């Protein structure tokens, strides 16, 4: 790849900063210390009805020092990149650990991890920040023009892009430098003449560069060109009759259901209660690991930090643990959690599977999800094959509204488009649809998954978790899948009151 690590980052005094902080922490008696220097550049552009509505380009750069001292965590972060300031952060972190000690009933220990030294760069061809503002805006305006058509009253096009550099060092000897680039272009069209209707592109954010915005990896031009027609059909679509339907769900919608009902539910920190007051807990309790029937026998879910273009892919996590792949659901049974080093040690689960992430140097690493993906069937089952099995159902495309409870049981999702399935054939769109289920019922009703040709890597740039709040990028792969007898609501009826 032409672009590796940015010399503006690697020319920072990374090793001297780490040496200063780690040696001070060791001198103060820390049993573990790690240093992260992170530079995260985030850009956002938004054009609306042919004009630039907003643009932002923000860089965050700083250093964080985390220690375990006398069995307690301590953390401090700042922006001064001098050896004196780094050592002072180690002082502050140890002081914070001392304050914590009386309120820490169990000494913190970490699962062992070999020391790693190396560099890792996500695969991209064109640095999106090296493309001029004028060219970026011009491309968005070009896409917006493609989306105009009869019945389209407003068009919005947006671009989000991130360039993330992280240096990590710890007392055990690890020293790694990584760069991850990601982008998300989106286009949305709106009709207001006959009530409000909207339709958005379904392309995912990707661990790619500007080339993705130009169409490499997803033919966004082709999708945008179809938006006016899809929107017009939605405006004229009949309202859905509520009841139970068989659903054939595309990966453009199913990824979000996986994210909310599988990926979050199998975070071990949630299962143990560390997120109980905020993100919530999980119905997938530690004592049922290995026996909980999560879904049907065709359900196989894998966690990984290695998928090409995956948003959670990396060389090492933010605790210095090497990227891995591991089973979460096998043949419908819950067999694995996402781990960090502290929980892996505490629960006797061996080595961490590398699921620690901090969204900046100013935040501590939390247990965050890797790429969590539903595996396709080995046979090449197509969408048409799945639809052919349905007498009366709905075909679901694109994500929209989502909500799930604090134990990841009860969820409700809408989508960009819902098509009626009648006697094994896709018919026209229907409107006002939401599907609602309990997690294990829903995955238990999954009769079939599509084959490799139906598989897409989808995802989100901004999964939220933790206090103080952090955001993380994550990908979810999924095939199309067939679910039987799912509860479908009519959203207009849900909101109707006399």
């Amino acid at each position: 790849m032409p672009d590796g690590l940015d010399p503006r980052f690697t020319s920072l005094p990374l090793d001297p900063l780490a040496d200063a902080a780690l040696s001070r922490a060791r001198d103060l008696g820390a049993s573990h210390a790690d240093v992260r220097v992170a530079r995260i550049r985030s850009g956002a552009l938004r054009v609306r009805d042919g004009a630039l509505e907003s643009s932002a380009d923000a860089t965050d750069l700083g250093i964080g020092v985390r220690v375990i001292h006398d069995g307690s965590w301590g953390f401090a972060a700042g922006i001064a990149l001098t050896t004196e300031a780094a050592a002072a952060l180690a002082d502050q972190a140890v002081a914070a650990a001392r304050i914590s000690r009386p309120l820490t009933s169990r000494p913190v220990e970490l699962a062992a991890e070999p020391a790693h030294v190396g560099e890792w760069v996500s695969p991209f061809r064109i640095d999106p920040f090296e493309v001029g503002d004028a060219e970026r805006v011009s491309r968005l305006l070009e896409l917006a023009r493609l989306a105009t058509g009869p019945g389209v009253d407003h068009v919005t096009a947006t671009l989000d892009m991130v360039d993330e550099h992280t240096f990590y060092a710890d007392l055990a000897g690890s020293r790694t430098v990584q760069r991850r680039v990601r982008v998300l272009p989106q286009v949305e069209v709106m009709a207001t003449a006959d009530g409000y209707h909207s339709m958005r592109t379904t392309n995912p954010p990707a661990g790619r560069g500007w080339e993705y915005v130009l169409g490499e990896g997803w033919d966004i031009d082709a999708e945008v060109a179809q938006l006016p027609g899809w929107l017009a059909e939605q405006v004229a679509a009949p309202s859905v009759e509520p009841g139970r339907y068989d659903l054939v769900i595309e990966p453009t919608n199913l990824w979000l259901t996986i994210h909310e009902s599988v990926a979050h539910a199998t975070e071990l920190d949630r299962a143990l209660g560390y997120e109980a007051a905020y993100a919530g807990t999980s119905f997938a309790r530690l004592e049922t690991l290995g026996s909980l029937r999560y879904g049907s026998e065709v359900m196989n879910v894998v966690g990984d930090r290695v998928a090409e273009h995956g948003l959670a892919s990396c060389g090492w996590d933010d605790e210095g643990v090497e990227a891995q792949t591991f089973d979460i659901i096998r043949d419908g049974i819950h067999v694995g959690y996402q781990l960090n080093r502290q929980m892996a040690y505490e629960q006797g689960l061996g080595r961490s599977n590398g699921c620690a992430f901090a969204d900046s140097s100013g935040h501590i690493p939390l247990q965050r999800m890797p790429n969590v993906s539903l595996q396709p069937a080995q046979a090449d089952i197509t969408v048409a094959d799945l639809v052919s099995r349905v007498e009366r159902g709905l075909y679901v495309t694109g994500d929209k509204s989502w909500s799930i409870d604090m134990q990841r049981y009860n969820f409700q999702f809408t989508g960009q488009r819902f098509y009626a399935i009648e006697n094994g054939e896709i018919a026209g769109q229907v409107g006002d649809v939401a599907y609602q289920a309990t997690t294990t019922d829903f995955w238990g009703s999954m009769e079939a998954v599509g084959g490799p040709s139906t598989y897409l890597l989808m995802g989100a740039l901004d999964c939220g978790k933790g206090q103080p709040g952090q955001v993380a990028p994550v990908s979810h792969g999924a095939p199309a899948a067939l679910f039987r007898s799912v509860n479908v609501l009519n959203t207009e009826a849900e909101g109707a009151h006399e």
Partner: protein
Amino acid sequence: MITDWIEAGLAAATSDECIVIVRDSGEANLRWAINMLTTNGQMHHRVATVVAIRRTDGVGHAGVLSGPVTSAAELVDLVGQACTAAQDAPASDDSAPLPEPVVDQDYAEGPSETSIAVFTDFAQGLGRALAASREAGTEMFGYAEHHVSTVWLATSAGARRRTVERWGKVELNAKHADRIGSAWVGQATTDFADVDADALAAEVTTRLGWCENRIELPAGRYETILPPSAVADLMILTYWSASGRDAEQGRTVFAGKDPGTTRVGETLSPLPLRLSSGPGRLPAPPFAIVEASAPGMTSVYDNGAPAERVDWMRDGALTQLPYTRSAAAASRQPYAFPSDNLTLDAGSGATLEEMIRSTSRGLLLTCLWYIREVDISSLLVTGLTRDGVYLIEDGQIVGMVNNFRFNESPVDLLRRATEASVATQTLCREWNDWFTFTTMPALRIPDFNMSTVSKAY
């Protein structure tokens, strides 16, 4: 001196106009779970935002860049990058002249700070609460944080503004050992001097006691008392959806029936509700600070403009929607800046306890969670009840009920509300990472739509 850095930055600007904002922020936090402290931290950062503006025939082309600054040279460099970006930038949709300059007397003062020591008294009370919880066989979870942010804002037109934003919060969640019974209390604060950990622990323990008797109820429509925290979450979402320009374009629940019109003037509630925001009893800066434009709501061109108190509703009628100065000029509407606080007041003197006593059968909620828009045109939202749904019978709380998923529009809830309590300062649950200060009443809804049962606790 940071103000010297700013002067150096403005002097180096090659664009027609320039705005420099420097935000120096300190933050401290404590987090606990299962009756023990889990994480803590103390952070400091300083970020500058530069809005460099090139004018062609009076229309602005803006380069907007933000980055960390530790010296005058870094700020000058950031200004240079923003000016370069402005050269390439197309015309801004929200272009407006720079606001009339105002100079604050305290502009040259240095930053205010916070540290982990702000929790000294609170941590002692928390330690007592965690010990008592262990003793009682229950579990406590929660989080406390404090921020102090000093903002300097200067423009090439001569504005020199300074303000100090102080905000903090504490959330305390108590659970039975089986984690089915669960209760929550929260409080917003500016300095933690008014946070009484013992009192919060006592309140959450009382509420956990209401969970001893467990009752299963099916989905359906229930008379429901939404407490101030739940009302706050719903009203904040409504506030964020209130762009005047978007309403004129038919994109929101506040769109009028005729194209280009809004619902301003329409009565939204039979209760004499007043919805307002801005400087006053709740903290808010007296001028607009906009580090990135929020489409239809706030504009970087409005930096330094007055952020005055605005009534969005009076006597139950919609009176005003937010407009940037640019959108206001285009729509011939008043400029109205949506400050980050919100007050809803019906002028009622009834307490929440009195509302409970006058309820023959109904539900009392604690808070709402995972609230998401389902239909923008009606502002139909879905979400969950959380950490305490209590059944009221004959004026008494008789036990806890399972959680529910709801589907409701906050605007329609205002229409159907039959009673409001006295307005009290409250911490919302869902949005408190972004919105700390609200004053809200409890509202009685005769037929709240609990769409399905959630098995979660």
